[in-house]
């Protein structure tokens, strides 16, 4: 494939799809965002909990890792 074919495809796409550069936002989205913030207060992601659970399990099975971890902190 060469530049000519890319240009041809570009022209074809632009014949069918209008560029959205001038798209206007018709309303203020702040109220929507406030509502979203109220619905979903900042939460700890699930993988953080999973990591914590994994670390606790590790410490239970291998208590010797606790001083090693503290040493490296």
């Amino acid at each position: 494939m060469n530049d000519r074919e890319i240009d041809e495809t570009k022209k074809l796409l632009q014949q069918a799809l209008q560029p959205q550069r001038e798209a206007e936002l018709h309303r203020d989205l702040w109220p929507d965002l406030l509502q979203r913030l109220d619905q979903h207060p900042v939460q700890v992601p699930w993988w953080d909990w999973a990591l914590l659970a994994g670390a606790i399990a590790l410490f239970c099975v291998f208590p010797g890792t606790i001083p090693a971890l503290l040493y490296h902190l």
Partner: protein
Amino acid sequence: MDLLARFAAGDLDAFESLFRQYQREVFCWIMRIVRNRATAEDLTVEAFWRAHRAHARFEAATGNFGGWLRRIATNVAIDHLRRSRTEVALPDDLPAIVPLPLQEQTELRRQIDDAIGKLSRNLRSAVLLALVEEEPYEEIASALGISVNAVKIRVFRGVRILRKELAKLGAHT
């Protein structure tokens, strides 16, 4: 404390100021990727919500808030494309740049819609931004968090797939 530092510290008023400053820009950027007004509005809210959640990770002293936000917005838009890959249809109210006879235009749009639907979300966003929106490769690379060469490769691969799909559908490529 300046606005960005206050935002990074979790100040809601600072966040609102930044929101008002950037909401149009973020909306326009997402619109270029998802090409649907209602979806772009929802995803703009989602992008700012994610930015708010991540405020503590924003480096106010050295940070480029606009660039950081654009990367979040790009990820939000691409996540949306991934979720709705099988059902994304381009809206009907997009007029052609070069007027074609109505039936031909509708047919061409349907074929292009089908062909674009075959692209992965990463290829689709690169192709739309580079070829339809004519965004500079540097801008796309920055928004996607990849190199300029990687953008060129995605566009190249996307065009190759599009041409193959359009040829299958009988469009003139």
